């Protein structure tokens, strides 16, 4: 099976081409869907609702805090009622932003090698950012009371 036949995009155009004889990947290549678009779309919506609720919670919580200094913020984050939503906020936010930026990269980075590398770096950066933020919240929530 030559590449030229595959890329004609017309399965069965030539009588010599039997679609059943092709491997599934040969038939799917260049035709677009890898059947993951629907799931990505749904996860974008799911994470949208999560970040919407969690950021409204964060905004209201910060506005209600008596002080945003070190003591005020750490005493607040030590409470489970603040630490747990904050951990969820971090997970939802970095999940949501990684999906969003992936689509931006896919739209603007056309060269396949650069695109692959960009998405790889994006995923690494998102995981690293989330890990730092999660660790910081856990350290405050589980650590000793500040002097």
């Amino acid at each position, binding site marked *: 099976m030559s590449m030229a036949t595959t890329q004609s995009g017309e399965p069965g155009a030539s009588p010599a081409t039997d679609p059943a004889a092709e491997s599934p990947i040969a038939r799917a290549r260049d035709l677009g869907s890898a059947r993951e678009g629907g799931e990505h779309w749904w996860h974008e919506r799911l994470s949208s609702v999560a970040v919407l609720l969690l950021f409204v919670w964060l905004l209201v919580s910060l506005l209600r805090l008596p002080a945003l200094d070190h003591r005020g913020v750490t005493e607040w984050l030590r409470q489970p009622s603040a630490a747990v939503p904050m951990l969820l906020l971090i997970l939802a*936010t970095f999940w949501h932003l990684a999906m969003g930026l992936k689509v931006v990269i896919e739209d603007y980075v056309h*060269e396949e090698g650069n695109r692959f590398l960009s998405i790889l770096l994006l995923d690494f950066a998102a995981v690293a950012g989330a890990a730092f933020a999660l660790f910081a919240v856990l350290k405050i929530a589980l650590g000793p009371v500040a002097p």
Partner: protein
Amino acid sequence: MHRNPSRPLSPHLTVYKWGPHMLVSILHRITGAGLATIGAAALVWWLTAAASGADAYKDFAGWATSWLGIVVGVGLTWAFFQHMLSGLRHFVMDIGAGFENERNKFWAMMTLAGSILLTAGLWLYIVMGRGA
């Protein structure tokens, strides 16, 4: 980039008349990218500073209350409200509603007005209510 020539190419940006729905569409992407980079960095900095101790937190707070920090803060809150409102608009469009020309334009403009009002209201509340 390889493109299969037998697949159609849809008409693109330049053939359409500019309108508020296009502005809101690209703003959703721009504000999202800004929040995902500068906003996420600020969130990580704030939390790691709080976890690192009073001195590290003082450095963050000093930066956040400088004029540059306040400009970035106002920008991030506007980006957040704009992205939030156009995201809510997308939910409505996801169920297939709000595509009529006038209604679509109206709600596109409402996200622009709403994000400015919410940003102004939030910072007025911060300045008036708390003395920053």
